[in-house]
């Protein structure tokens, strides 16, 4: 189930650790004394270093070691956490990311510069008393059979006595004796002299000592290796009794083990309480299996194919008189539906992972612009298809930058306008029906409509004085080449980006709503369908062709009698509960060249508040629609957002609801203007 390439797993894990560390660091900026967060950051750095060293990212391990050391000192209260330290580690983190992505690159200069900043931040003492080189490959336990081992057998006399609690702690004395026996010919004698009387005997304690005569070709080191884990705590005397030179060795403590622990209190780590990280740490952890994204995509494809095959089966069964076949077909239909739903859930990830990275962005932007900014996030647990999350990352970055750069005023300007000097940016997500709505809201100056209009006129996007609805005017900011920034800053405002935002959102079959109030702020909402790969659709027939209308957009279906149709000729409006709704005859739009069916149907679809009726020849029914993208060669065809394969193997095109509603509105505006 999981990728078997540990390096790849490490990279994924490193990305998560970076997020966790970053989130912790940003939390610390709010409360430098939060011990839990300090611990969490330390742990993140520690794991990064340890795992990095395991998988050959030595430069990363060496570099991270310094940051870890710095936080270790903070953790132990030896140095205080400061803004400078947090900033230095934030900077260092970008470097660590580079060390993960291009471990072979030349990073030395950057390393040195960042370390200097880090040392300055902890009073130049970050590494005092510590070895600054990366952890070296271990030398002790593996040092068996060294080159110096004598060719012929050497005789040793070994007397040892393990600590009383050795067995409780998992050391098996018989195992040690077995290991000695493996080294060569061995005579073992137990020393039972210290076994106490029954009254004071602790059954779990070890009272026996041993003396062993061993002849081995593997030398003294091999013997030490047998006792490596207990060497510090035990009595052992190894005497060489071979003819060469009786060299009585004193109990040899493992040289590298440093002095035992001073009594610091044990860290009883509480779950880290970094906001935005709750799902990972919340209480008892559910068991997780990590699956590479492409496997999920593969599985999604298979499920898609299954859904298609199933609809073919349903069609066959439907035209068959065989009741058993029908029953089986219904079962398969139910199961594939459930499988589809489960699959959808698997692809859903909380948007919190996306929001997390904005805290850093806002932090950086605040430093760059000198504005005082507070970022609030809401609805982090809202779940969205992972593809949507991936594709939305860049557009959201752009929108947030835009809000901060263009929307929020500098502190003095805000104060002059009677506002709090801290500008607020609220990033929120919520689910509504089949859509997820992601909103970026600021309390800045709002969009200057006059300036937008002037700019659009001067750049030829609209005619001078052209009549526009407010929404149309605001949407102009998403036109290619449009930028209202009076002064181009290096953050945003080069006029590239907003059009890309719009394109990306549309590619996800989403729409953008803009609201803005002068002096009060702006709000940009991205409404994106929850899932991309399979939708519920309404299959209709227009002329000889089959088409799918996304069910999430369908409000109702009506019958359009020939009389109604005739009466509405030239008007293309019907009255629906006292509202005039424009409608489109798809037969005409699609130039089918066929006569209308006698009983035409109208499907009323909507996006937001706008509605439009689509006149079709026949409503065939619900259809689980596996979305296939249209070829590049058809990208000029805006009426369709994709295609799907029907049960009979034919192709049906999926109507682009947003586009059709826009066409309807345009028609409405024109008719209103004319009439």
């Amino acid at each position: 189930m999981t990728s078997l390439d540990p390096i790849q797993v490490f990279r994924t894990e490193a990305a998560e650790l970076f997020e966790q560390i970053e989130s912790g660091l940003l939390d610390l900026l709010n409360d430098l004394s939060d011990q839990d967060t300090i611990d969490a950051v330390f742990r993140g750095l520690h794991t990064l270093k340890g795992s990095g060293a395991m998988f050959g990212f030595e430069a990363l391990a060496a570099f991270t070691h310094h940051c870890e050391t710095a936080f270790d000192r903070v953790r132990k209260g030896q140095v205080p956490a400061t803004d400078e330290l947090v900033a230095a580690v934030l900077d260092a983190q970008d470097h660590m990311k580079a060390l993960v992505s291009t471990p072979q690159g030349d990073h030395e200069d950057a390393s040195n510069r960042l370390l200097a900043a880090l040392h300055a931040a902890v009073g130049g003492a970050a590494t005092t008393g510590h070895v600054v080189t990366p952890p070296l490959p271990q030398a002790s336990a593996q040092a068996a059979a060294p080159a110096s081992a004598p060719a012929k057998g050497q005789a040793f006399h070994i007397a040892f006595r393990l600590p009383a609690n050795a067995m409780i702690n998992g050391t098996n004395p018989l195992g040690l004796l077995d290991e000695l026996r493996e080294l060569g010919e061995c005579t073992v004698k137990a020393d039972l002299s210290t076994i106490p009387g029954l009254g004071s005997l602790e059954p779990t304690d070890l009272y026996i000592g041993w003396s062993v005569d061993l002849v081995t070709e593997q030398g003294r080191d091999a013997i030490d290796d047998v006792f490596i884990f207990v060497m510090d705590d035990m009595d052992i005397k190894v005497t060489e009794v071979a003819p060469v030179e009786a060299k009585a060795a004193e109990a040899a403590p493992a040289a590298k083990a440093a002095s035992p622990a001073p009594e610091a209190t044990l860290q009883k780590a509480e779950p880290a309480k970094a906001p935005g990280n709750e799902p990972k740490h919340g209480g008892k952890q559910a068991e997780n299996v990590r699956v590479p994204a492409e496997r999920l995509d593969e599985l999604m494809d298979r499920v898609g194919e299954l859904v298609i095959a199933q609809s073919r089966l349903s069609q066959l069964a439907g035209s068959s008189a065989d009741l058993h076949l029908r029953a089986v077909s219904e079962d398969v239909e139910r199961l594939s539906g459930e499988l589809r739903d489960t699959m959808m859930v698997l692809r859903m990830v909380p948007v919190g992972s996306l929001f997390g990275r904005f805290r850093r962005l806002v932090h950086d932007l605040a430093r760059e612009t000198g504005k005082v900014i507070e970022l609030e996030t809401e609805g982090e647990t809202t779940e969205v298809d992972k593809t949507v999350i991936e594709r939305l990352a860049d557009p959201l970055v752009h929108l947030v930058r835009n809000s901060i750069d263009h929307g929020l005023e500098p502190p003095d300007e805000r104060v002059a306008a009677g506002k709090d000097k801290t500008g607020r940016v609220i990033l929120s997500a919520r689910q509504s029906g089949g859509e997820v709505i992601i909103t970026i809201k600021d309390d800045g100056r709002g969009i200057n409509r006059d300036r937008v209009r002037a700019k659009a006129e001067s750049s030829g996007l609209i005619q001078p004085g052209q009549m526009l609805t407010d929404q149309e005017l605001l949407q102009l900011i998403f036109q290619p080449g449009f930028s209202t920034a009076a002064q181009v800053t290096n953050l945003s405002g080069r006029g590239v980006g907003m059009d890309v935002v719009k394109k990306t959102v549309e590619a996800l079959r989403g729409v953008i709503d803009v609201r803005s109030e002068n002096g009060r702020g702006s709000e940009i909402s991205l409404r994106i369908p929850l899932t991309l790969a399979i939708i519920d659709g309404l299959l209709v027939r227009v002329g000889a062709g089959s088409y799918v209308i996304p069910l999430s957009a369908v409000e109702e279906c009506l019958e359009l009698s020939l009389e109604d149709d005739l009466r509405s000729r030239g008007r293309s409006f019907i009255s629906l509960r006292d509202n005039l709704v424009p409608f489109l005859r798809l037969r005409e739009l699609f130039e089918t060249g066929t006569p209308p069916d006698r009983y035409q149907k109208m499907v009323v679809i909507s996006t937001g508040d706008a509605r439009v009726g689509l006149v079709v020849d026949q409503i065939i029914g619900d259809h689980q629609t596996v979305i296939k993208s249209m070829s590049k060669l058809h990208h000029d065809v805006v009426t369709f957002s994709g295609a799907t394969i029907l049960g009979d193997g034919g192709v049906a095109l999926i109507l682009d609801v947003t586009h059709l509603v826009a066409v309807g509105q345009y028609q409405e505006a024109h008719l209103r203007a004319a009439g």
Partner: protein
Amino acid sequence: MNPETVKHLFDHVWKDQDELSVLTFSLNGETFAIEAINVQEILDLLPETRVPGAKPFVAGVINFRGRVIPIADLRRAFGMEATEATIDSRIVVVELTLEGEPCLVGLRTDKVHEVTTLPHAAAEPPPIVGMRWRPDFIHCLVRRGTDFVIIPNLEVIFSTQPARSAA
């Protein structure tokens, strides 16, 4: 993509080879050849779905092994009359590189002949004058007996088809 660039790239079709392995097929009596390496599959006619609003050159789509791919009619590019499908009609699915990405397209053909090799020595660039077709739509002509085999420059054809005004 810039047609000049495309042409330049496609000029390397022979890649210093003496021979080119191709699939030959006919359209309105002319013999065409496409590099065999680009041919994915030869299909019997499938039900086509018309795409309202699409360019006439790529007016429909088919279901090719679960993928929805466009069907193109080279006759449109070479100003030929549309003809009725016959029992010999086939769809040749080719893979093209458009805007740097691979793209599958089905080509309507009247009849598919064979996979054969064409000698480089017999190839000639398209004549600049005296030809009713756009010269950049043709990579080269290869003489075979008294006839010519046309190697069309699909990348250019597919990247320069005008929007629906051509209808």
